[in-house]
Every structure is written in structure tokens, then in C-alpha cells.
């Protein structure tokens, strides 16, 4: 009895103390000193900011947001005499007054360790929720707060709910508070939270809900049990669905890479029967040309830097196609009747190109600016994230497919190429310049390899050796699909991509690759002409 009373009094005092602290004016210099200090002090400073934010005035809120943002972004500079911060625009201001200032000579930037960062970032998000200027910023901030719910932040969220004007944001905050009530002692509130969570299925939600099964209410309250079990099974269903989607997406993204690496080869091999082991290096050169385009943009058009990837498309194609054409007329054309020698000769070319690039550019990975449109991704459903860079690769592969199909089916060049593929002598007899067609086809195949290199820039490391990764895979794709059929190459790429991704989680990446390659080898023993083959007289 006494103890309970005591507890109540203590609680009262605590609340009182807190609210009285909140009414005190913000001591900016002290706070800054804390944020400039060692890790425990930073934590204490951040915590007191969070507590103050529930009641602080608007000017103080803006200030707190600016300082914490600068801290996280490492724009804060702690000098012995003064603390300054660099605004995102670049101007240096006094951290206490936000008046223009110069950086102190002794200034050093405080480093957040992981623990502090884990605390500061949600607080900053909560502040953004209060003072953010844009609905999107606020929604993102809300998500961040929801992800790491801290008791001190609940008051801020409640305050945000009160002052929010935008109905969309207000609604989102409303539902977030309901979700955050998952740990509330009131089973009814919990039930609402459970329903909210089941509407956003993810492994995380599932974990949160599974924990609730140990709550006393689970066994005591039938309605509660039903709500929880229903929510869990609903999430599990969504997760299963999202896993299927994720597998398909991963498979398609692998398939798109395989297809792009293989399509140029398919054209060259199909038309001329020459195996170009330097195809991977043309791909690598495509990536390097993309890099040079980026550097050119950086030097000449820094404002449009994000668009270098698009601008590089025609340049990469032209450069690699020209290299391919030069290669064809200087070397490859001598090997049309000696395909085995062509293997060695093109390997020599590949060796040469790799080493040429190596001594010119060095061995390090090239540094690419990731354009804003390729950064990150979007959660579609459950755990399924669509990452923009892979979507770019898929889209690019589709465009390549469309373009190649168009060239092969709708242009004179394509018609001539198909004629030469079917019967070289006859095509020559009816006046097709087979030499010229060879050269153009080789240029096309090389250009496509270059484009594959471009599309890989945002996904893979670009270095002189990158081409060798692809060569065996793309050959197997071409042969599996059947020589000389675009559809075959496409189907083979999709098939191999999907099977690979299906096997990978169970047996690991290497085993998946081994199994898939062995399957292809066996298949080719059984059907050497591949999936889609043009039949003709043997010999």
C-alpha cells in the first residue's frame, strides 16, 4: 500500500520535474558543448534535446533541427573558442546564433559512434516531423521514428499530431501513433496496433507480433488471440507472396545482365561462327567510356552530371562499335574459316585490352556518381524491395532487346544479316556485300557489348578484369539458346537467371552457379543445337 503510494508520488514528481525542465529556456551553449564532447556527453545532449522538443518554442525547434542535422551530416565544427556549423548551402554560421561566422582554427568535427548515431538519427527524424517543410520529408521522418520507437520520441510525435495541418501527414501520424501503441497495456489499443501492423506486412512486423504471443492477454482474451493470430497468418501469406515476387525480380535482374552480355555475342557467333573471347573486354571498354563521359560532364556540365548515364548511351555504342569494326577488319576476318584459331586470337585481344586498360587507368575500381534516379529503391510489398539500379538494368535490357529486334527484323541491314546467316554463298550471289555485312554485324555486336558495360556501371565494380566474369556465362547462354536466334538467347537468359536465383538461397551462390552450368552442359550434350535451333543439312 505504502509502496504504491510512494511510487505514485515519485511518478508525479518525475512528471513535474520534466515539465518544469521543459519550461526553462534552452541553454544553447551547454547543449553544443555536450554535442561536441565524448560519446556519453553526446548521448546526454541528444536525449535532452529530445525531451525539450516536446515543449520547446518554434525558433528553438528549428535551431535544434539545424544543429542535430549538422552533427549527423558532419557539418559541425567544434573549436575551443566557438562552435560553427556549415549550412547545407555552404555558408558557415555560428552554431549558437546561426549568424554568419568564420570557422575556428581549432575546429574539429565530432564523430558519432554507432550508438550515438542510432540515438541521434531518430531524434533528428522526430524534429523533422515537427519542423519539416515538406510532406515527403515528414513522412520519411515518420517512418524513421516508427522503425526505432523510443519512449522519449512519443511526446514529440504526439505534439506533431496536434500541430500538423496537412491531412495526409496528420493521418499518417495518427496511424503511426496507433501502431506505436503496440506495447501499450490496453489490449484494445494493442488490437488496433496489431491491425495496423498486419497492413504493413514485413518480417519486422511479424517479429513484433510474434513477441505478443507471450502477452498474458493472448491466452486470457479470445478476441485478442484471434486478432493476433489472424494478423500473423495474414502477414505470413503476404511475406510468402513477396518472397515469390522478390525471387522473380532477382531472377529477372540477373537475366537482364546475362542477356545484355550475351546478345552481342549471339549476333556475332550466329552470323559468323566466330567466337569472340574479347567480348567481355568490349563490355569493359563500354564501362570505361561511360566513366570518361561522366568525367567530361563533371568538367563541362557539372549541373547535368546526373544525366551522364543517358548521354553516354550513343557515345558508348559508337566507340565500342568502332573498336569492334576495327577488330573485325584487322583480325577477325582472317578467321572465318578457322574458328578454333579465332578462339586463341580473340583471347589474345582480350589479354591485350585488359592490360592496356590496366596500365592506362590502373587496377582500381572506377568511381561512378550514382544518379539520383538510381539511388536506393522502393518497398513494394512485404520484404520485396525494387532497387532502381537493377530496374534500370532490366529496362535497359528490354530496350536493347527491342532495338536489336527492330534492327534484325525491320531494317535492310537486318534482312541482309539474316540472309548471310542462312546462306552466306547464296547471299553473296544475290549481291549482298557479305564482307560489309560481317563488319556491320560485328560492329553491332560490339556496340551491344559496350551498352551492356554501361548498364553494369551502377551495379558492378568497373575495373579492367570485369569482362572476364561474363564471358563463359554469356557463351553458355548463347549456345543454350541456340545459335542465331534472339528469342533463344532471351529465353536462355531468363531461364538461367531464374533457376540460379531459385537455387541460390538453398545451396549458396557457388553451388547455384555450378548446378546451372552443369545443367547447361548436360542439356547441350543431349541437344547440341540448343533450345531454338535453325535446322539444316548437316556437314
Amino acid at each position, binding site marked *: 500500500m505504502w509502496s504504491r503510494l510512494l511510487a505514485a508520488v515519485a511518478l508525479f514528481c518525475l512528471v513535474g520535474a520534466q515539465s518544469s525542465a521543459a519550461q526553462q529556456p534552452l541553454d544553447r551553449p551547454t547543449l553544443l558543448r555536450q554535442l561536441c564532447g565524448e*560519446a556519453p556527453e553526446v548521448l546526454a545532449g541528444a536525449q535532452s534535446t529530445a525531451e525539450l522538443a516536446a515543449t520547446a518554442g518554434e525558433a528553438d525547434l528549428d535551431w535544434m533541427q539545424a544543429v542535430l542535422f549538422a552533427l549527423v551530416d*558532419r557539418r559541425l565544427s567544434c573549436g575551443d573558442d566557438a562552435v560553427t556549423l556549415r549550412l547545407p548551402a555552404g555558408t558557415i554560421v555560428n552554431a549558437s546564433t546561426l549568424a554568419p561566422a568564420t570557422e575556428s582554427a581549432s575546429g574539429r568535427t565530432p*564523430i*558519432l*559512434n*554507432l*550508438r550515438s*548515431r*542510432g540515438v541521434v*538519427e531518430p531524434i533528428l527524424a522526430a524534429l523533422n516531423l515537427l519542423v519539416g517543410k515538406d510532406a515527403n520529408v515528414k513522412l520519411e521522418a515518420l517512418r524513421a521514428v516508427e*522503425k*526505432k520507437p523510443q519512449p522519449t520520441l512519443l511526446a514529440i510525435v504526439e505534439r506533431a499530431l496536434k500541430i500538423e495541418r496537412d491531412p495526409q501527414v496528420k493521418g499518417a501520424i495518427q496511424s503511426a501513433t496507433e501502431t506505436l501503441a503496440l506495447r501499450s497495456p490496453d489490449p484494445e489499443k494493442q488490437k488496433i496496433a496489431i491491425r495496423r501492423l498486419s497492413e504493413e506486412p*514485413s*518480417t*519486422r512486423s*511479424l*517479429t513484433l507480433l*510474434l*513477441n505478443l504471443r507471450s502477452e498474458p492477454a493472448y491466452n486470457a482474451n479470445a478476441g485478442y488471440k484471434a486478432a493476433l493470430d489472424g494478423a500473423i497468418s495474414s502477414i505470413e501469406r503476404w511475406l510468402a507472396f513477396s518472397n515469390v515476387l*522478390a525471387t522473380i525480380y*532477382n531472377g529477372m*535482374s*540477373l537475366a537482364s545482365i546475362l542477356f545484355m552480355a550475351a546478345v552481342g555475342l549471339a549476333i556475332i557467333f550466329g552470323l559468323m561462327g566466330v567466337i569472340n573471347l574479347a567480348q567481355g573486354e568490349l563490355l569493359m571498354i563500354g564501362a570505361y567510356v561511360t566513366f570518361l563521359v561522366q*568525367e567530361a560532364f*563533371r568538367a563541362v556540365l557539372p549541373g547535368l552530371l546526373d544525366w551522364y548515364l543517358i548521354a553516354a548511351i550513343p557515345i558508348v555504342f559508337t566507340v565500342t562499335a568502332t573498336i569492334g569494326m576495327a577488330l573485325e577488319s584487322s583480325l577477325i576476318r582472317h578467321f572465318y574459316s578457322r574458328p578454333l584459331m579465332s578462339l586463341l586470337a580473340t583471347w589474345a585481344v582480350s589479354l591485350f585490352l585488359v*592490360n592496356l586498360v*590496366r*596500365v*592506362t*587507368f*590502373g*587496377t*582500381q*575500381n*572506377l*568511381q*561512378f*556518381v*550514382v544518379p539520383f534516379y538510381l*539511388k*536506393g*529503391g522502393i518497398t513494394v510489398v512485404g*520484404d520485396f*524491395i525494387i*532497387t*532502381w*539500379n*537493377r530496374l534500370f538494368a532490366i529496362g535497359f535490357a528490354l530496350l536493347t532487346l527491342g532495338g536489336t529486334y527492330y534492327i534484325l527484323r525491320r531494317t535492310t541491314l537486318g534482312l541482309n544479316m539474316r540472309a548471310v546467316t542462312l546462306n552466306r554463298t547464296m547471299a553473296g550471289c544475290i549481291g549482298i556485300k557479305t564482307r560489309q555485312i560481317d563488319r556491320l554485324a560485328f560492329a553491332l555486336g560490339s556496340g551491344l557489348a559496350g551498352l551492356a558495360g554501361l548498364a553494369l556501371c551502377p*551495379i*558492378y*565494380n*568497373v*575495373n579492367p*578484369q570485369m569482362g572476364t*566474369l561474363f564471358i563463359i556465362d554469356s557463351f553458355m547462354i548463347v549456345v543454350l539458346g541456340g545459335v542465331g536466334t534472339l528469342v533463344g538467347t532471351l529465353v536462355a537468359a531468363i531461364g538461367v537467371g531464374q533457376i540460379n*536465383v531459385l537455387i541460390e*538461397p538453398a545451396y*549458396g*551462390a*557457388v553451388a547455384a552457379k555450378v548446378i546451372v552450368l552443369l545443367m547447361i552442359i548436360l542439356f547441350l550434350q543431349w541437344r547440341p543445337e540448343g533450345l531454338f535451333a535453325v535446322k539444316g543439312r548437316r556437314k
Partner: protein
Amino acid sequence: MNELSRRNVLQTMAGVTAGLAMPAILTRSAKAAGTVKLGCLFSSSGTMANLEGRLNFVAKMAADEINAKGGVLGKTIEIVTADPASDWPLYAQIGRQMLQQEKVAALFGCWTSVSRKSVLPVVEQANGLLFYPLHFEGDENSKNVVYVNSPPASSVIPAVDYLMSSEGVSAKRFFMLGSDYVWPRTINKQLKAYWKSKGIPETAMREEYVPLGFSNFQTLVNQIRKFADEPGGQPVVVLTTVGSSIPDFFREFINQGIKATDVPVLGLDVVEADLEGLDTKPLIGHLTCWAYLQGTKGPANAKFLKDWATYVTSKKVPFKPDVAIDPMVSTYDAINLWALAAAKAGSFDVPEVQKAFAGISFDCPSGYKISMTSENNYVARGVFIGSVNEKQGFDIIWQSKDTPKPVPFSPFG
């Protein structure tokens, strides 16, 4: 990298032309009268080239410095380099060639444990000396190898302790992702035993391996995301992939939107050079541990960084002048340690130099005074834990008080 321009191209041309003048190069080794030769086993081609390549130049820089002070025992050091092309047996081949044909006084080299293991029988048979500049899995103590960097007990374990402490992230669950070879396997084996001794259940540990040079981490990062969302406490990733798999992994990690505050990555082999191709802003906070980080304060480091920058610009070295990584410093230390030992022994003979190791010490750029004892061939080094910053480098968030005594054989596993 931004200045790959005519100069580089011209350099290449010059290289190729020089090659055509082969005989001139072949006669080079004839002028060996007043010199003592040291051999380098670092690849300038293949998967390891980006990392190992720069160590050749550091060795030359260290030798130049020593030579400028009058050399060792009155002789100038000549550095002999080669290209084992990231091909492990070739390290053994070239190592043999250097010891038996070139008669080098000591070898400096290898990055991966595989390559060291392949050279080991060669140096043991020829009774040579190999200075190995990488931190590694330990459990080895050959009298013919000087382990300049730290075994796990004095580098990895402190970093893991930090992650598990409340000062770190109070890590409870561990996803181990490594390249499939001896170093990651051994490290993970020891870590598992260590965690077991700390009462962490098996269910809180996951172990995955990818082949060297693996690049498609989409599925694995999916798995990590899942693992992180499962119950049981704060997850961390212990990353022991090497070479190009490191940036590939981080790229996918960024794209799937995982932050260091959600799932921190302790990248045991991540150096500044691995971050070169990346936008590291979304990676801020991930951790690494080494016996040297570029950000360390102190005159020794300032001098080292300045010397390296000058060396790179004056000798047109194809690496960044403003990036220094632990193995570079370790190689620098190694050359100096050898010179100290040889000077102390008064001889270049391996048995004499070996005897002289006990008690030598050197002011390492890391700011620590590193030393060797008669107990083993390990060098006592300091330990740093670094956190990735937005400038493709590391901020030091923890460092050891002094140089812990190296423990070659792990008590765990």
C-alpha cells in the same frame, strides 16, 4: 583517378617501348656490387592488383629513405619487384626464383593467406625470410616468417568486443559473410568459439561464404535483411569478403536501404582503397579494425603521409597520393624492421638477422612503438577501430591503450 590523361597514356607507351628494349632490362641485375637485394611479392595484375600493387611502391619508398640515410651496413637496398598476377602458386614460383636466383636477403609480400601458405614451404626450404604485412587468421608461427600485422586475438576480438559492448551497439546476433578461403573460415571459426564462450546461442549466428571475386550480392543482402528483422536483439554483419567483393557487397547494401544504425557491418578486410569506387554517405558508421588508420594523429603519421604523397607525385605512381592503408604502413614497418635487425646483427645472413629480432622496436606511423620479442616472430601493434566516413575514409572511434602482446595461437577454436 580524375587525371587519367595523356600522362598515363604516355607512361604506358613508354612502358611498352621499354619492354621492346628487353636486353637492357635483363642486364640490370648485374650491377649488384654495393647493394643488398630485397624481394617484393605483390601482384600488379589480377584480382589483388588494386590492393597489393601499391605495396611495391611503399617498399621502394622505405628503401629510398633508408638509402638516403646511408643504407644498411654500408650497402644500399635494391628492391626487386615481380608480378605473381594474383595466382597463388606463382607466388611460390617467384619467391623461389628470388631466393635462389636473385639471392634476395628477405622477401616482403603476400596479401591473402593462401599466397602466404604457398610461399611458406619455399622460404622454409631455402631458410629465407618473409615479412607478411597483413592481419590474418593466426595459428601459424614459422621461424622464417615475420608476421608484421596482428593475429585475430589482438585485432578482431577487440573490435567484436566493442560491438557487443553498450558503448558499441550491444550486438546480440551475428551474420558472418566471407570469401571462401582460409582466412574468413578460420576467423569465423574462432569468432564462433568466442561467442559461444560468451553465451551467445548457435541460433544467433549465421555463416555464409561466397567465392573470391563474387559480385552478385542481391540474394545475400536479402537474407541479411531478413536475418536483421528476426527476433533476438541487435544484429551485426561480420564481413570477411576480400578484394572486389567488398565494394560489390556495400553497393547492394546501400541499394537495399540498410543503414549502419540498422545493421552495422564490421568489415575486417575493408580498407580505404575498397571504398574508392563508392558513394560512402549511406555507409557512414560501418566499422573496420586495423593496426593503422590514416586518420591517426601524430608526427610519425604526418611524416609518412607527406612522404607518400611526395613519392607518388614525383615518381608518377599510379595510385592515389592521399590514401594510406594499413598494409602499406605494415610494409613500411617491415622494411625498417628488417634494416634495424640487419644493422643490429651486423650481417644479412638470415640466421643472424633472425637472432637480432628480439628487442628491436620502431616508431610506426600509427603512433605506436612497435616491437618484437624473442618469444615469436610476431610484431606487437596497436589496434584501431574505424568508422566509415563520407570521404571514403575512416574515422577512428576507438584505439588500444598500448600495443597488446600478440597471441599467435587463438585460444578459441
